[in-house]
């Protein structure tokens, strides 16, 4: 696998990875929250 090391001065590249990491974390939390809500609702027999 190709490997690239980013320079500490490459602010754009560093910001890019910080951004997509943050977006991914937000997506994970959203999905987990929806799954939890759906499971809880099912347990209460609200959703079939």
């Amino acid at each position, binding site marked *: *696998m*190709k*490997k*690239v*090391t*980013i*320079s*500490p001065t490459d602010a*754009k*590249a*560093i910001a*890019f*990875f910080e951004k*997509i*990491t943050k*977006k*991914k*974390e937000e*997506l*994970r939390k*959203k*999905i*987990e929250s*929806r*799954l939890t809500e759906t499971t809880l609702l099912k347990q209460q027999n609200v959703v079939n």
Partner: protein
Amino acid sequence: MDFYSYHHEILEDGVRQYTFYSNITKRIYSVSFDSSFYAEFSEIFPHLLSNGHSIAVFSFATEELDGASQDDKVKNTIFQVILTESRLPGNENTVFIYHCDPTDDRQKARNVLFEKWFQETTNHQNLIVKSGIEVDIPVKEGENIPHYLGYLTSANNPNAEQISREFNSFLYMI
């Protein structure tokens, strides 16, 4: 190829999500596709991102297990979902971009597993050309965090060469 039944829905922001459960690992799996995740970069990488969808795979434990468990149907199901997405009308030349979640420092293990699954799974048929890259990001003096990302696209994608060129040069262009 044996895989689990899965549930499909479109979330309010257009993200397409597939979920399934493994009664062996006792985990719920989510495979989601988002066509807007990398949209802000599409002008810079027209071939890679004009039809680029992020793919995110998460799993959530529903109960504690005493030890690790393996379920081959999980990988089969994930790739079946990717195949299903790729066959949707309009998705013939979609580029599925993955980025192994680094938030819990397990991104290397995820990448190794995904590479292994890709090699083992036969049901991607002629779907996929795959390319991956490791990018080391400096966080402090002498310390880097590795990120693993790559893409999957149809072996018949007429833009395969341009996509590969853009992917391999994107770090110099963002």
